[in-house]
Structure formats: structure tokens, C-alpha cells
């Protein structure tokens, strides 16, 4: 039934999308560009301004059918180093994307170096692929968009530059010049009706780091988010081997890891709790980032400190071209983004986001009862983000940027205890009430300085400070003679410096060497008091402060022994002050293009170390509810360590389609597992917040996972289809006292299937997504038994669960759809969209409980979210 509905909806989308008008028809096959442009002018009536010298010798193959003059022109120029700008309604101009005049004198050794930038905004593109097909070499740009190919001599070389979400650039340059600036046109995926007939795209890219998924902001915005929001972490879950812990909430799970085994970086600074709204949406707001790199498993040696994955996100530099602003209102929040050049050498970006539900329902509610008694109830919840970046280029060899991020959630409640979904029942003075005043958030300040020291040496330094702070104040009045009060706080501060040097000694080697030092400061305070009666109280006052330093050095080489093989050896050595741990973590990745179109093989082996672990008090309700409590090793726990091996293949054998298959095996040791899995928060006060006390609730454990991931990515002129299927097992066990049997880990997901289909028309944007996976493990009882109380003789029935996680929740299925309509109004580009979460209202089972005193043995299911429609509006000024 579900599949039938999905198919019907899909066909409706198809039918709707095809109903658009078609006016311009172009078809060229290996035609000189000058001739094609002439035909274009005749067909469309638009004059094209360009230099005949620059297009001399260029040929084009493309087919266009549609109504947009601009898109038709882009079709002709696709793959050529030009950007299309409209001067007026009837006139367009072609602007060269390649700076053919080197800004510095040429290098006599024949080095080709330069920067790859966004042709529209001028922003550097990190992770762009620069390929020299004739030489059989290629490179990936660094954080500054820089690349270098030494030893090319003085002959002209053809260059291909690609970057996801941007048009491919083919050009020929003289290798004896340095400092090229390649600008990529970001329009390709948004152009409608274009079919670029070229086979060169059907080649695998050897420059990709194994395990890396690099996604541009432009591409992420095409993927569905949560409730109409574009959200980086939510979008990443559509990729193979990536999922979230909860239905719409929770951390990111990568290849069977735990959610605390991922490193999240914003402009080089770590962020420890990248979530808002109880993990409903992330702090990574898609359009504030220019690119996002997710390393699964075998991440390069420059990254460390986590076992599983690294998410490295770069904030936008700010447009160097012209000011722009975007305003967006979704079902959960409103946001803005503005960016502008300040001078020829500087630019800025500023964005903000805030939820507004507190504005709709009000934060304070003065109430009065019939007797004239007054009270003020509170229902405040909001979250906000601020992101800002200032970029400055003192000269053509260096750049400085300062990035700042601040985000926080604030929850402020004072409500009667007997609240329900009947809102009217709340609005009265309450004798028995609870107050919750909680806030949690991150602040980051990061300064990056990059300089091209010589044409072979590139220096990059990052100085950062990252803070995570959480406060939980609770006051409960359950009766007139008793009260519960708690003031709990968690602080974590990182201050660090990272220095990285990229060295390009030859065409065969690119070496990255660096060092990093981070000072961690952990703090936590608790001041709780339970008044059982006016004369009987139980206080709990504790404080925990720790400071330690983590230092690392690393070296990573990209070795290209031949045109079809690339090897990535690296090693990272680190020392952790608390406990004096020294660990060496080697990494090795290999890529082999058996045939660039048919098959490329990627393999990796890597070792990782994690010195910080996130734990939680498993007893107390009064504190540690929303905070992330990271603790350092050395207080009864050793560093966690993991090794991973992966082997994958990629094929471009189908047009516009990338097929991927990856297998992996992963093993870890030293991760913390709950000593008593069945213990959950059920009391007011627990044993406290001391690190040693918290660690006492956990045992050292082992984990292992293995799986196979199948991925398919198809992109055409209007369509995007991303599908993935993952077959995986993830297990763990406690090994502290004596090894226990392996058991499925908490989020073990043997099968997961996701598919996203999006269609981008001239005015309509339509999409649907399907998320299906195995249910999470649960501990299912196999029998019941009765025990007697030793004093009273009263009997109690219990369920017997012989094994942990021996059963599963029903499989999870959800289908979302989204439709958005674009139009111009009041000199702005508008887009209004409707997202329907859980279209078929399939209430997934998210947890189960069992009551052994009931005669029939069956679980009580807790159901997930129902169908939820969400509207959003985006205004591009």
C-alpha cells in the first residue's frame, strides 16, 4: 500500500513537472561555439557580447528545449571557461572564467598553481578537483582553494576543474605561469532544459580522498531537511552509511559508530553539541556554509580526536561580487543571510536564525483565578544562531578570515503539574507546579591566516576558541510541604592552534604536515536540594573542574606513482596531558583506476584515538537532562581506539550516474558502555557529578561493525536522484571484568534504504524522500517469573530478558514530500514551499515497554510523529 501511494505521488510529480511551456529549441553536435551563438541569437533574439578571439577553436555539443534565454546560453557555453551575465533583457555577455594573465611572474620550473573560486561570489572553493588529463595528474584544492602542479615545463596543458554543484571547466593554460584563478559557474544544476552532450563527465575522479563525501552548500540545499529547514546533518543522512539516532532527532551515526564518535568542525573549531530543539535540527544551517566535507572512517591524518567520522564545514566567505540578502521563514524558525564585498580585498557574511514558537504562544502568561489570586505562567522556548565571517586579502598571496558562531537554546517553563494538551486547563494559578530554566549552546571564534610562501609551500594556521555551556535550573513544588530545587551547569572550553604546511615537491607528491595543540577545560557544578518536609532535606552540592592539554603532529602524503594509482599514507601522533597517554595513529588509503569510466577501486586502513568521551548520569532526573557532558580519559578510563578497513568501487558506466559500493570492517576498544543497560533515570538525586562517579556507571567495552553500502547518484538537467542501501551489523560488549557475549549495539541497523527524488523546474521544485530501515534493537523478554519480598512475602512478577538487544522494533518507514514554487515579486525572488513530514501518517514505533503484571504478554508501543505539514518562504533580495 505504501509503495502504491509513493508511486502515485511520483507520477503526479512527473505529470506536473512536464506541464511547463517550451519555446527555445537548440541542438548542436560538435559545432563551433561562434556558430552556435549565432544560431542562439536568431532563435532567442538575444544578442551575445563576447570576444571572438576567446571562443576561437571552441566547440560545443548540447541540446536545449525550454523557455529561458539564459539557460539556453549556458547550455551552449557549458564546459567552457565563461560565465553568462545578462546586461539587459535582450543582451547577454560572456565573461572569461580563467584569468589568463598571471598576477605574478612565471615560475621557471614550470609550476602551475592557483586558486579555484566561485565564479559568482569569488569565494574560494575547498575540495575542488583540478585535473590535468594529458599529464595524468590531479589535485584537490585546500581550504584556500589552492592547488599546485610542479615540474610541468613550459608547454601548454589542458586543465579540467570540477566541483559538485558547479559547472565543469575545461581550458588550456601555459604551465610556465603561476597563480591561475579558475572560476566555476554555479549555475549548472539550476539550469533547466539543458542536455550537455559530453562523455567526459563519465570518468571517476582519482583526486577524491577515500571515505570523503564532499557536498557543496548548493547541493545540500537540494536535499530534503527537517520540517522545511535546510539542515546539513539532516541532509547527510541520505548518504550511504549515515543515519540519525532518532526519528527526527538525535545524533549522527556513521558506519555503526556511536553519536559521540564524530568530530564536528566549523572553520576548524570543534563544536561539541551541534543540535537545537532537543536534537530536532542541527546548528549547521545549510546556506551559511560554502561546503561541507564528511569523512567516513579513514579520515586524513590532519584530523584526530574521534573514532568514526569528521564533519568539516566552512562558513561562506561573503560575496566578493555584489551584496545579496536572503530571508527565510520556515515552520520552526526565521533566518536571514547577508553577504557583501566591503572593498576589493575584503568581504563579510552575516547570518542569523531564531525560532519563533515562543512569539506565537507567548513567553509569559499572567493568570488570575476567581478568588483574585494571581500567578505568571511561563512557556518560553527558543533557539538562535549567529554566524559571521570577515575575509580579508592583504595581497594576492595571503588571506585572513575571522569566523564567529554563537548559538543557544533557552527553555523557560513554569507550568502546573497536571498539564495536558488541553491548553485552557493550564491558565490558572497553580499551587503545585514545576519550573524549568535551561539553556545550552556553543560559541566559536576562529581566525585563519593563509599564505602562499612560495609556489610550492602553502601555510595555513587556525587559532580557535570553542565553548559549550549548559545550565539546568529546576524547581518543583509537588506538594505544599515539599520542594525540589536544582542548579546544574556544564562548561567545556577548547582553545587551540593548528599550523598546517602544504608542500608540493613534485608532481608525484603533495605533502601536508602540521601540528596542533588544544587546551581543554572541563567544569561542572551541581547544587541540588530536595525538601521532603519542612524539617527533612537532602542536599547534594558538588563541583568538578579539570584542565588538560592535547597535542598532535601529523604528516600526510598524496603520492601519485602513476596516472591510475594514488596513495595517501599518513600518520598522526598525539599526547594527552591527563594520564600522559601517547598514541600513534597511522592511516593509508589507495585508489586505483582500472578504467576511469568503468571501475575505480578505493581501499583504506586507518587507526584513530579518542581522548574525550560523552557520558551521562543514569540515575537522576534532576540534572544532566539536556546537557552533553564530555569527560577526559585518565580518570578511570583509557583512550578509546578504533581501526577501520574499507574497500570500495565506483563506476560511471551509466550516463550522469555514479554507482558506488563500499564494504567496511570496523573495530574499537575502550569505548564506554553502561554497566547496567537497564538502569535509566528514575530518581530525583543520583550519585553526583564527579567524573569518577559518572565513570563508575560505565564499563570499558569493545565494539565492532561491518557492512556494505550501495549508493547511486543520478543528476540530469532537472532531476536529482540519490539512493542508498546499507547492509550493516554493529555490535559491542563489556570487557572490563570479564568479556561478555557480543550483542547488537543500541542503534544496530542491519538494513537501511533511503531514496531522494527531486525535480527542479522553471518555477516548481518538487521532491519526495523515503526512509526505510530495520527497527532498532530492543531487549525482548522470553519468560516471566515471580519473586517474593523477603519481609512481607508480597510477590512481584518480572519479565526475564536473557539477552540484551535480542529483538527489534518494527521496521521504520517514512515518506516526506515537498513542493516549492518560485516567483518574482517586489524586485525579489520568492520561493514558497510546503513540506509534509510523514505523508502517509505511518506512526512508527519508537520504543516499547512491558508491564509484567498484565495477564497478556505484549508490549506497549510508543509511537513517533504523525503527519506534519510545514510551510516555508524564502526571499532572495
Amino acid at each position, binding site marked *: 500500500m505504501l509503495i502504491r501511494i509513493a508511486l502515485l505521488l511520483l507520477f503526479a510529480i512527473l505529470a506536473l513537472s512536464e506541464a511547463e511551456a517550451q519555446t527555445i529549441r537548440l541542438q548542436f553536435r560538435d559545432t563551433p561555439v561562434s556558430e552556435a551563438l549565432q544560431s542562439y541569437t536568431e532563435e532567442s533574439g538575444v544578442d551575445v557580447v563576447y570576444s571572438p578571439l576567446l571562443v576561437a577553436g571552441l566547440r560545443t555539443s548540447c541540446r536545449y528545449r525550454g523557455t529561458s534565454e539564459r539557460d539556453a546560453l549556458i547550455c551552449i557555453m557549458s564546459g567552457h571557461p565563461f560565465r553568462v551575465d545578462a546586461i539587459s533583457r535582450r543582451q547577454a555577455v560572456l565573461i572569461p572564467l580563467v584569468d589568463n594573465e598571471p598576477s605574478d611572474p612565471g615560475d621557471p620550473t614550470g609550476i602551475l598553481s592557483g586558486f579555484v573560486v566561485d565564479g559568482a561570489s569569488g569565494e574560494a572553493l575547498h575540495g575542488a578537483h583540478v585535473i590535468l588529463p594529458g599529464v595524468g595528474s590531479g589535485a584537490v584544492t585546500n581550504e584556500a582553494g589552492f592547488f599546485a602542479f610542479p615540474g610541468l615545463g613550459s608547454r601548454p596543458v589542458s586543465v579540467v576543474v570540477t566541483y559538485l554543484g558547479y559547472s565543469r571547466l575545461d581550458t588550456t593554460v601555459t604551465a610556465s605561469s603561476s597563480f591561475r584563478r579558475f572560476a566555476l559557474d554555479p549555475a549548472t544544476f539550476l539550469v533547466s532544459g539543458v542536455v550537455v552532450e559530453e562523455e567526459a563527465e563519465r570518468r571517476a575522479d582519482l583526486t577524491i580522498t577515500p571515505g570523503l563525501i564532499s557536498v557543496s552548500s548548493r547541493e545540500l540545499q537540494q536535499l530534503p531537511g527537517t520540517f522545511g529547514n535546510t539542515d546539513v546533518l539532516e541532509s547527510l543522512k541520505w548518504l550511504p552509511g549515515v543515519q540519525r539516532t532518532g526519528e527526527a532527532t538525535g545524533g549522527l551515526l556513521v558506519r555503526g559508530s556511536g553519536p559521540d564518535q564524530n568530530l564536528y568542525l566549523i572553520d576548524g573549531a570543534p563544536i561539541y553539541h551541534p543540535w537545537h530543539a532537543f536534537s530536532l535540527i542541527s546548528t549547521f544551517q545549510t546556506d551559511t556554509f560554502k561546503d561541507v566535507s564528511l569523512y567516513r572512517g579513514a579520515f586524513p591524518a590532519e584530523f584526530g580526536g574521534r573514532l568514526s567520522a569528521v564533519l568539516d564545514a566552512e562558513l561562506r566567505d561573503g560575496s566578493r561580487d555584489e551584496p545579496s540578502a536572503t530571508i527565510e521563514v520556515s515552520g520552526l524558525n526565521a533566518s536571514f543571510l547577508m553577504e557583501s564585498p566591503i572593498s576589493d580585498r575584503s568581504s563579510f557574511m552575516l547570518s542569523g536564525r531564531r525560532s519563533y514558537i515562543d512569539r506565537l504562544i507567548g513567553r509569559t502568561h499572567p493568570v488570575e483565578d476567581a478568588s483574585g489570586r494571581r500567578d505568571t505562567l511561563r512557556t518560553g522556548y527558543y533557539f538562535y544562531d549567529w554566524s559571521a565571517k570577515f575575509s580579508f586579502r592583504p595581497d594576492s598571496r595571503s588571506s585572513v578570515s575571522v569566523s564567529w558562531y554563537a548559538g543557544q537554546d533557552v527553555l523557560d517553563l513554569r507550568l502546573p*503539574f497536571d498539564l495536558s494538551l488541553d491548553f485552557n486547563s493550564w491558565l490558572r494559578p497553580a499551587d503545585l507546579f514545576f519550573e524549568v530554566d535551561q539553556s545550552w549552546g556553543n560559541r566559536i571564534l576562529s581566525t585563519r591566516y593563509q599564505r602562499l610562501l612560495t609556489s610550492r609551500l602553502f601555510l595555513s594556521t587556525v587559532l580557535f576558541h570553542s565553548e559549550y555551556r549548559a545550565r539546568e535550573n529546576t524547581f518543583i513544588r509537588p506538594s505544599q510541604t515539599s520542594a525540589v530545587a536544582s542548579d546544574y551547569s556544564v562548561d567545556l572550553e577548547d582553545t587551540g592552534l593548528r599550523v598546517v604546511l602544504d608542500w608540493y615537491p613534485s608532481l608525484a607528491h603533495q605533502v601536508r604536515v602540521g601540528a596542533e595543540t588544544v587546551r581543554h577545560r572541563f567544569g561542572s557544578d551541581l547544587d541540588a536540594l530536595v525538601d521532603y518536609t519542612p524539617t527533612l532535606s537532602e542536599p547534594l552540592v558538588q563541583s568538578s573542574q579539570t584542565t588538560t592539554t592535547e597535542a598532535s603532529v601529523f604528516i600526510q602524503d598524496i603520492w601519485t606513482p602513476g596516472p591510475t594509482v594514488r596513495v595517501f599514507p599518513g600518520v598522526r601522533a598525539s599526547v594527552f596531558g591527563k594520564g600522559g597517554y601517547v598514541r600513534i595513529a597511522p592511516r593509508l588509503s589507495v585508489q586505483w583506476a582500472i578504467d576511469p569510466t568503468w571501475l575505480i577501486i578505493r581501499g583504506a586502513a586507518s587507526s584513530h584515538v579518542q581522548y574525550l568521551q560523552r557520558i551521562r548520569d543514569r540515575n537522576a532526573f534532576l540534572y544532566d537532562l539536556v546537557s552533553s557532558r564530555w569527560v577526559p580519559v585518565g580518570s578511570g578510563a583509557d583512550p578509546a581506539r578504533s581501526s577501520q578497513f574499507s574497500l570500495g568501487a565506483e563506476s560511471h558506466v551509466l550516463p550522469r550516474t555514479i554507482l558506488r559500493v563500499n564494504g567496511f570492517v570496523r573495530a574499537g576498544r575502550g569505548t564506554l558502555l553502561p554497566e547496567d543497560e537497564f538502569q535509566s533515570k528514575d530518581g530525583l538525586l543520583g550519585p553526583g557529578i564527579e567524573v569518577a562517579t559518572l565513570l563508575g556507571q560505565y564499563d570499558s567495552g569493545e565494539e565492532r561493525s561491518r557492512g556494505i553500502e550501495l549508493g547511486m547518484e543520478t543528476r540530469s538537467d532537472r532531476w536529482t536522484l540519490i539512493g542508498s542501501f546499507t547492509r550493516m551489523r554493529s555490535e559491542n560488549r563489556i570487557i572490563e571484568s570479564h568479556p561478555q557475549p557480543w550483542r547488537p549495539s543500541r542503534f544496530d541497523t542491519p*538494513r537501511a534504504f533511503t531514496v531522494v527524488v527531486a525535480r527542479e523546474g522553471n518555477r516548481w521544485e518538487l521532491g519526495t524522500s523515503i526512509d526505510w530501515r530495520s527497527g532498532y534493537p530492543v531487549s525482548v*523478554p522470553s519468560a*516471566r517469573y515471580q519473586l517474593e519480598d*523477603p519481609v512481607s512475602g508480597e510477590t512481584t512478577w518480572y519479565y526475564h530478558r536473557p539477552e540484551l538487544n535480542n529483538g527489534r522494533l518494527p521496521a521504520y518507514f517514512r515518506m516526506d514530500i515537498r513542493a516549492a514554487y518560485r516567483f518574482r515579486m517586489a524586485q525579489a525572488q520568492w520561493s514558497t514551499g510546503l513540506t509534509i513530514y510523514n505523508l502517509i501518517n505511518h506512526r512508527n514505533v519508537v520504543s516499547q515497554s512491558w508491564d509484567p*503484571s498484565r495477564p497478556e504478554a505484549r508490549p506497549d508501543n510508543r509511537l513517533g510523529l504523525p503527519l506534519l505539514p510545514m510551510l516555508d518562504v524564502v526571499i532572495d533580495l
Partner: protein
Amino acid sequence: MRQTPYRTILTVLTAVWVLTLTSCDAVVPAHEEDIVIEAWLDTGQELPAVRITSTNALGSPLSASPLESPARVELDVAGSRIAYLPASGDPLRYLPQPGTTVRPEAGDRFELRVEHEGRESTALGRMPSMIRLTDISVLAASEPTPVVLLDSLNLGLDSLALDVNATTGFMYPVQVSVSWEDNGEDDWIEARLKPSSEFSSSLIDFFLLPSQVFPESSAEPGAGGVRTWQGVYALPVAAADTPMPEHSLNVILIRGDDRFAQFATSRNTPERREPISNVNGGLGFVGGISVDSLRVNVSR
């Protein structure tokens, strides 16, 4: 030939359908009958009966199941080996062989062995020193107070479950102070205040302290080598003007080791878990404890 998106999409959706229908991860664990052993050896007291049952399959009626065939039961304590025999008239219990006079003393170690159909289950423990209540004082409120009726805090964002499921009522909070002789050892105490059963309500107890399991050394020391624990229980009443009903209160102190503490703190949430067992090869608990209790009448 150019691949149309329609064909690709249909291929993917077909794959979804196949995977959805062909995948089944649900597991129903098979019931394997386990033996459940319970015995509470009390310091200085006669040896207790041993209660031996078997687990019930999930579909079985809720009644304790005796073993299908008799088990062989032996207890080693105080240097003696005592055989247990099935009790006549009660298929769930085994009694020490007639004539047994052994009484376990403080510090004695014990081991209970049960052999049934070729499988042996054992439990080990140590006898704590005897506990003796020395003083109880009761302080009740003079009038009822409004109270929230709530057994736990259970909010779920995933389910939009915002109902706390709480109501309000009235109660008399009764504060009780209990003192006992300190043995100076590293034992655990379970203290319980058990009013007449008609007044018990877990809905009120959540924010009070009707029982607690704690290290003996954490209790407040007093003059004369005693330690004192204070608890509060609720006496629910119908209305704000209802006088406090006269009732009986059973004050119970149990002394045991850390394994007993683990058992005692894990047995009170049967809807979530089973108690931590100390029986190797079976379920249940065989504990060495010392119990003292006193029933008092409480009136206005």
C-alpha cells in the same frame, strides 16, 4: 541510449519494494525454562525455606510454576552441609532436613547449590551482623496538604507526548526517624516505611522518601553508637478537611552486602527491568541479611 529518469526512478522504487517485503528483522526469543531460586538467610535465625520455581512462558497464566521434577538442594553454612527436602503441601518450597539446628551467625559464608535435571545453580554470600532497631519517632502533619499524583517524569519529544499524566489530591506527609545500632562495618541498609496497604500509593511516593537503600556509613551517626535514617511517607486522604486516619506503620530495616543492595535497588521497577541476580545458572536471589522491624500505630 539515454537513460530516462523515469526508468531509473521506477527501478529504485522497485528495489525499495523488494527490500521492504523481503526484510524481516523481528525476533521472538524462544522460551527456555530457567530455574528461579529465592532464599533469605537471616543472621541468628533458623534456616529459611528455599523457594524454587521455574520461569513461565510468555503465554502462560500468571501463577508461579513449580519444577516438573524435584531438585536436589544443599546449603553449606557455618561449616555444615544441610540438605533441603521438598515441603509437603507446597510444591514451590524446600525445607531443611528435619532436626537441623544450624543458625547462621555474622560473618559466616554460605553457598546454596541446586541441582535439577543435570544442571547446577549456585549462589554465594556472607551473613551480616545482626541489626537492631533502637528508636522510632513519628511526626505527622497537622492538616492535609495538596499533592501531585505522579509516578514518574516521562516526556517524549519524538511522540509529542507532553502529557505528564499527573493529577492532584491530598495527603498527610508523615516523617519518621529510625535509629539502629551501628556495627561499624561496610554494609548496606534498606529502610522501609510501610503504612497499612490501603494507604500505599506510588503516585505520591515519587517526591517523598518512603524507602531507601544506602551505605550504612552514610547514615547520620548519633550518640551511643547508633545511626539514624529519616524518611517520609504519604497518607492519602480524600479532601482538604479529612482528619488523619489512624493506621499502622511497619518500620523495616534490612542489613545486607553490596550484592543485596544491587538487588534491592533493581527490583522496584518491574515494568522496566528484572532484579539483579546472584544465582549462577539461574534467576532470583539468595541473600544473607539481617532484618528488624516494628509495627506501630499512628494516630492524630
